[in-house]
């Protein structure tokens, strides 16, 4: 199992080439493909997530780690048996209607992808009906809504109401975030959670669909 430790370390250091070499070595040795992913690659990303949360890593370093992990996963994926999952779940994210700000939302998407979730990014200025269509189409477990403006945050409530009208509110957890958003507001509009930053959002998604 020492190979997994090396593999994790290479992911943490963002060494894409080394990750590829070590992954190939494990494949050649006949190691269980799912174990390479879960015990080596994702294990490394878990450490990255923790370090980022406490301010020990910058975003660009997290992204390098994520790219290294993805390179390893891409090599192992064809070897997985049918039905073996490589994604922790699907999350639809987007900035709500009338709002063009997206850097915070992009960070959340990046952190979620780095943590093994499939992310469907709807971009900015996204209407409720577009969110609903994406949730249905991708069978998403989580919907993440972002707003920076005081004049667009109320659109979040509209989207939650629309989910109810479509009869799918209980099928998807709704997570909200953005500068003017608070837990109180999340409670008021019936969201399942609020996250103040990208690292917290990833943790919250884990708890919501754990």
């Amino acid at each position, binding site marked *: 199992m020492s190979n997994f430790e090396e593999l994790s370390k290479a992911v943490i250091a963002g060494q894409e080439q080394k990750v590829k070499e070590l992954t190939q070595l494990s494949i050649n040795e006949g190691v269980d493909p799912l174990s390479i992913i879960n015990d080596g690659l994702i294990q490394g990303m878990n450490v990255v997530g923790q370090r980022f949360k406490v301010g020990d890593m910058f975003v*660009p370093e997290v992204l390098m780690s994520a790219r290294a992990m993805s390179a390893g996963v891409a090599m192992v994926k064809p070897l997985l048996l049918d039905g073996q999952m490589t994604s922790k779940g699907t999350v639809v994210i987007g900035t709500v209607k*009338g709002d063009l700000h997206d*850097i915070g939302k992009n960070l959340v998407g990046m952190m979620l992808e780095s943590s093994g979730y499939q992310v469907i990014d709807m971009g900015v200025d996204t209407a409720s009906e577009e969110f609903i269509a994406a949730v249905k189409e991708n069978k998403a477990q989580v919907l993440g809504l972002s707003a920076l403006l005081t004049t667009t945050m109320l*659109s979040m409530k509209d989207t939650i109401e629309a989910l109810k009208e479509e009869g799918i509110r209980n099928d998807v957890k709704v997570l909200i975030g953005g500068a003017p958003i608070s837990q109180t507001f999340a409670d008021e509009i019936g969201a399942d959670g609020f996250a103040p930053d990208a690292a917290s959002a990833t943790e919250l998604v884990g708890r919501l669909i754990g």
Partner: protein
Amino acid sequence: MDNLVFRDVCYTNLDEFVYGIAKKPVQCHNGMVIGGGTVYPEINFTLPPMLISEATMPKVKAQYKEMIEGVCSKAHELNVPGMLVEIELLPPCTFNPQWGIEVTKVVKEVMMEYEAKFNLKSVLRLTPVDIREGKNLKHMYHGEHWDNLMETFRGSAEAGADFLAIESVGGKNLHDDAVMNCDLPRALFSLGVVGTHDMVILWDNIVKIAQETNTLPSGDTACGFANTSMVLANKNFIPKVFAAVDRVMSAVRTLVAVERGAVGPDKDCGYEGVYLKAITGTPISMEGKSSACAHSSTVGNIAACLADCWSNESVENVRLLGGMAPTICLENLAYDCRLMNVATSHGKALEMRDMLAESDRQLDPQAYVLDPSVVLKLSQKIVKGQTPFERTKIAASATIEELREAHKTGALLLNDREVRYLDILKEQLNSVPDDEMEFTQAMIKTNTTDKFDPVKYDIA
């Protein structure tokens, strides 16, 4: 259209480079002179949580009326020598130009009423939101987004705006990617090639509208660029040295507005405005501790060193213990300006400036690059570049060296992680070729069209 080229800096004497006075002051229609010796407050406010739609427009206008009445009343009470009011329109009020025009009318009417009744001098800066982004954008310079933006400028100017401004976003998607990856070449491409290209076309059109409507084209800001870096750096998401380098690079992009005819005052949230003042002599608006209501920064005092207008960035209309937030912000700004102006009248402006600088300079590289002496030194290097690309590259290189030297001498405190990034950034910069065309082609090849579509910018 103007095509001014600044081959030298406007200031060489540090003792002339101070808040309240600009070498090219702006004369307003009502007699106020920006950069003529007095620092004026610039108040900016926005709506509380509420939707903007046709149905809610009466309530929207009532909110703006309440805010401007509170602000004008307080300004009169405090005997401010004059003030700027900035309305940064929200997206629906630019997507629907008529709504933005109606907001302009409401605000201007109250300002004129206070001028007539109480001789309260004020000018209105109108800033439509740059809506040229999102998945429905077809082209940067024609189509619905462009037309609505231009119609909002023209309509607002005709409805009473004195100054026209924008926080333009050409190349922003590229830059967002650059920031998250600490990718200096990509930031350079965004700011020094795509952004400056966009600014030429955008500002030629804004200046034309200003000329036709007898308004003043004021300036732009790297809000969507260097301020994104600043906010992420302050959250410890990216290195602060990257944000500092990005800030100085962004000055070249913002400078294009003046090259095409903008006269100032430059926009408040463009902290790079200090470089603009050094190079062009135009007055600038700045924000620091006064804008903590909108966002945190590490430049609370030093940002005031060269300010000709002092702003709060933006505040929503909510009730605080002391009253409504916009009114409270105006009060804070008025007292800050009063102190700076009194220092000037006692011949103590330079001492005040130096104390403001010293209180922040050593603690953060983003503050260090706003120090007036550093600004002059780096500006002299920037203007040696023949093109925006060259200037932006010089800005990056000179800032990296300046920060490294300041760290060595103890003038700037940096931890080891930050110092390591100075090396990384230098290495990245060394990989950028001197040939702009070669660089552009390489960048286009390594970007996806969702981040940057050259066709939408008419860039081959």
